[in-house]
């Protein structure tokens, strides 16, 4: 039997969206903490490396201040790590998806050719953009 939290999460799109937001925030935060623990780095040390304050780092890691992608990059740079980002569909789980039937092969008088998963203009390159 699933729990009451799972039930709430699937009760509405609004709830599911909120959960998706909180999951992403928590996963990023946990990954940063894991890296900090492995390197034996405190929040103070991280702040020093970033040229920032401990207060700022605390706010970002606690979620009381929104973490921008730039801040995430700065944190990873300070930890000498590189973040990896993947946007996956739940059903496809990162598999390549075919574009067949999804992209028009001719549009605005431009001809396109499809090679595998890539669609590229055949002529009029200067107009293609």
């Amino acid at each position, binding site marked *: 039997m699933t729990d009451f939290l799972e039930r709430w999460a699937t009760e509405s799109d609004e709830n599911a969206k909120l959960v998706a937001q909180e*999951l992403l925030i928590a996963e990023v935060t946990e990954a940063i903490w894991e890296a900090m623990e492995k390197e034996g780095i405190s929040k103070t040390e991280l702040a020093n490396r970033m040229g920032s304050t401990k207060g700022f780092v605390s706010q970002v890691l*606690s979620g009381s201040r929104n973490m921008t992608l730039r801040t995430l990059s700065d944190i990873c740079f300070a930890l000498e790590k590189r973040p990896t980002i993947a946007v996956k569909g739940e059903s496809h789980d990162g598999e390549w998806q075919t574009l067949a039937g999804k992209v028009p092969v001719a549009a605005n008088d431009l001809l396109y050719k499809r090679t595998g998963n890539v669609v590229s203009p055949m002529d009029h390159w200067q107009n293609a953009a």
Partner: protein
Amino acid sequence: MLEYRGSRLTIRYCEQPSGDADPATWQPPSWQEAVNHVPAKKHNAIWAKMVARREILANKGQLRSPDYWNTEGDLPDGKPFYAIKPDTKIRAYGRYSKRYRGVFYISHFAFKKGQKLSSKNTMRVITNWRNIEEQQP
């Protein structure tokens, strides 16, 4: 039994619906009580945060951020119990089971009134621990 299964842990609740309760609508009384202490406009955020914390705990086996998770006190066997923090004031007190491998029990939820862990919450965690870990097979 009301529980949530992740890839590493099963999260099981010490509070379970009674025989006449509808499991499709039931939620732990301590959760309802704790959330009701917080302004209604914050309820959805607290629910979503608790779902996220619970999912990561179940799939990773632990939480690392001190903003999400604290080692809160000791059990009679010397092992610690923990607090999951979906909000600054709401706690889910729980522990890893020695008896049931791969199970994390949530003893109960509470609204934290002061800074320190209250003896009432400690006693409730320990009572639930005794009921499960020390009961006869």
